[in-house]
């Protein structure tokens, strides 16, 4: 029953958000910036019309929206497109993630000469937030090879981010334990964790995807397709939260298997029916993201945060460029892909919460200090990346000529 007033507040927010999105668009920014600003104003930082407690109750909306985003990404990636993008895509994903990791770790080490801390910040750098990029693509109805490449990169790099985080967090834990001369847990076993997570996410996503596409092909009447899609995505999300798997990878695989086991026309039909509701989901997602933002965390950015941001941007852009050059991708992918993947939000904050928990189990003062620093810094940098990321993605798509012209007129 406590939900009831929340429903009304949410309803008003959606309607006002539509218009704040329009204002943002008039200023040449993606609408989601408007949704986020409204959320910030109504959220805990400013007016407190939406309380921490109701935000926790509404967490499921964020999860569902992210599930749909990942599913959409997967459904865009049929093997033919991927083959056309070529090995360039794989190289780009490897290079941007690794470069972000190494550059951030290196820069933070130069600044603090604290190796475990540097490893942890490096580990968080590759994580990206696909929702911002996908929202921009859909809002401007972008089309073309850069768009396809962006879908592939923001989707799959979550997998690599999980692995890099797992490895370097394990290494950092080992270093910290050695410091406090404690018997350390086997490195191997802690490295297996992320690999297991990745394997299970891909496996469960694939299995669900096969079931889904087999059922969807035979489903009549077609008006029930959205129900089936919604059911499977909620199922996948629920399993991920329950088993601690990657929500993004699992749902991506459901969409991916669908796109590659059904004729293009019928998979288009399935995804097309979702399209009506994507704007609503994006409004809710970014409004809630804004309401979550804790502006008072911004001053905590500090020198460390600035170094992290600069090194991460340099790593992602430099790495994407390097990967594209090595894979001989098109010029526009070489030039602009890196700009399109800067968003960072929920996943990174989630990982930093995990770091704090892991490190509080170690218990040494050094570990506790790192845990606290990571949380405050990443919370602050995420505010910036969440705003800059989509703006840069729009800029990149515009420059690459993948946004149809008539779209700008229809403000």
């Amino acid at each position, binding site marked *: 029953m406590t939900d*009831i007033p929340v429903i009304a507040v949410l*309803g008003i927010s959606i309607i006002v958000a539509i218009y704040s999105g329009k204002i943002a668009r008039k200023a040449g920014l993606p609408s989601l910036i408007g949704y986020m600003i409204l959320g910030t104003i109504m959220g805990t930082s400013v007016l407190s019309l939406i309380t921490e407690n109701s935000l926790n109750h509404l967490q499921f909306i964020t999860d569902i929206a992210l599930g749909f985003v990942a599913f959409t990404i997967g459904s865009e990636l049929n093997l033919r497109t991927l083959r056309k993008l070529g090995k360039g895509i794989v190289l780009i994903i490897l290079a941007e993630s690794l470069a972000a990791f190494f550059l951030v770790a290196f820069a933070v080490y130069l600044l603090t000469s604290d190796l475990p801390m540097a490893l942890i910040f490096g580990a968080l750098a590759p994580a990206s937030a696909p929702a911002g990029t996908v929202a921009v693509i859909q809002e401007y109805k972008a089309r073309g090879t850069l768009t396809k490449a962006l879908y592939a990169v923001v989707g799959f790099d979550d997998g690599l981010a999980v692995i890099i985080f797992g490895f370097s967090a394990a290494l950092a834990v080992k270093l910290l334990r050695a410091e406090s001369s404690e018997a350390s847990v086997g490195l191997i076993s802690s490295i297996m964790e992320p690999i297991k997570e990745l394997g299970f996410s891909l496996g469960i996503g694939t299995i669900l995807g096969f079931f889904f596409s087999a059922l969807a092909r035979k489903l009549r009447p077609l008006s029930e397709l959205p129900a089936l899609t919604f059911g499977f995505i909620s199922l996948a999300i629920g399993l991920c939260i329950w088993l601690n798997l990657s929500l993004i990878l699992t749902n991506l695989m459901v969409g991916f298997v669908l796109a590659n086991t059904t004729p293009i026309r019928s998979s288009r039909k399935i995804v097309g029916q979702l399209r009506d509701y994507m704007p609503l989901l994006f409004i809710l997602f970014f409004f809630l993201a804004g309401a979550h933002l804790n502006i008072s965390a911004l001053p905590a950015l500090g020198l460390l945060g600035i170094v992290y941001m600069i090194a991460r941007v340099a790593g992602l852009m430099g790495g994407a460029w390097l990967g594209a050059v090595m894979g001989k991708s098109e010029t526009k992918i070489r030039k602009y892909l890196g700009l399109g993947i800067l968003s960072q939000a929920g996943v990174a904050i989630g990982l930093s919460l995990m770091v704090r928990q892991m490190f509080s189990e170690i218990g040494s003062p050094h570990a506790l200090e790192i845990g606290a620093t990571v949380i405050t810094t990443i919370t602050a940098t995420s505010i910036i990346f969440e705003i800059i990321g989509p703006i840069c993605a729009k800029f990149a798509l515009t420059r690459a000529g993948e946004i149809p012209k008539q779209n700008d007129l229809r403000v």
Partner: protein
Amino acid sequence: MDFQLTTLLLVGIAVSFGLYTGKAVRRIGLPSLIGYMILGTLMGASVLKIFPMETVHGLSFITDIALGFVAFSIGLELSLHTLSKLGKSIGLIIIFESLMALILVTAGVFALTGDLPLSLVFGSLAPATAPAGTIAVIQECKAKGNLTKALYAVAGFDDGVAIVLFGFAMAAAKVLLLSESSGFSPGFSLAGTIGKPLFEIIISLVLGCVLGLVFTWLIKRLRSRDEIPALTFGLIAIGTGLAAQFHLSLILVNMSIGFIVINKTPIGMGRTISGPLRPLMPILFILFFFLAGAHLDLSLLPQIGTIGVVYILARSAGKITGARLGAVIGGADQNIKNYLGPGLLSQAGVAIGLSLIVFQEFQDMPGTHAVTIGRSAVTTIAATCIFFEIVGPILTKYVLKKAGEIPVDTKP
């Protein structure tokens, strides 16, 4: 966090499995929603307990939103053009079917128990109907025609009449009970008891109209169609949230929004608004009836007792004869005369809500008689609703078929 995890997983299971139990049930000629309800009952608190009651309560906002959408889509069907074609018979039908249900149930229960306040309470609960079942059947079967239109109108508007009648009959029951126990108590005002439901209806209609006008004003100026579903959802959320918070009729509020929208926008606009709702409705119906099923407490069925049986018989007779009487006097067409009444029997959430009000108000009254009546109303209505919730939609489908308003090609 624990709450989140199981909930989404369970919602996913409910929707994807519900879809197929619905299909199985459809194969034997019943409406899908019976399948959703059966799955809900199996997984719910009565049988397997996979869906704990706590989760069901946590998801009650889904039921509210679904009902809001149902009421909104009822409103969207009621263009003045349609209503004027249906003529004054609709008004008469609504008044007669509601009044007859009230009168017959009161008489029947009085004949059985000789307890007038008790009979009035049961009578006051009889007119309430549950529109979701009727609408779900109409949409699933893609029914079209005069009877369909009349069902939309009656299912929507009779909520208002039911609230008024409930208010009056309750007031009468209270007066009787109070005079029974040492005359009038100073805290009771007859005008207040009758005035409150009227007030509730008027505020609901006004709120709905205001929101509807805001919506039409906004939607006419919305350049891109992409945002229409978001706008619709936002408005229904506001209507639903405000109705729940200020104890208004969720159905009347959202129905008036739809009613204003359809009558205040250019002709094509209605379809632009209701089009995107179509893929959403099956999801909402599955969740709505799944949760309704999970709510069902089968252990209540034996408590139905003779009062319950009399209530069921008298209410059905009242609705059917009342609708027929109204249709005959109003000169409605043959299909409506014969089939409207049996299509209207669903009763669920609203009636249970009203019986809880009875329980609450009677608990604070002097004398044990009032408390017993309150308790008996809650348990009996909970049990009879199980019956009406299952039989209602089945009959609706049957009458639509009989009236020839279900296109032949919509087989599963």
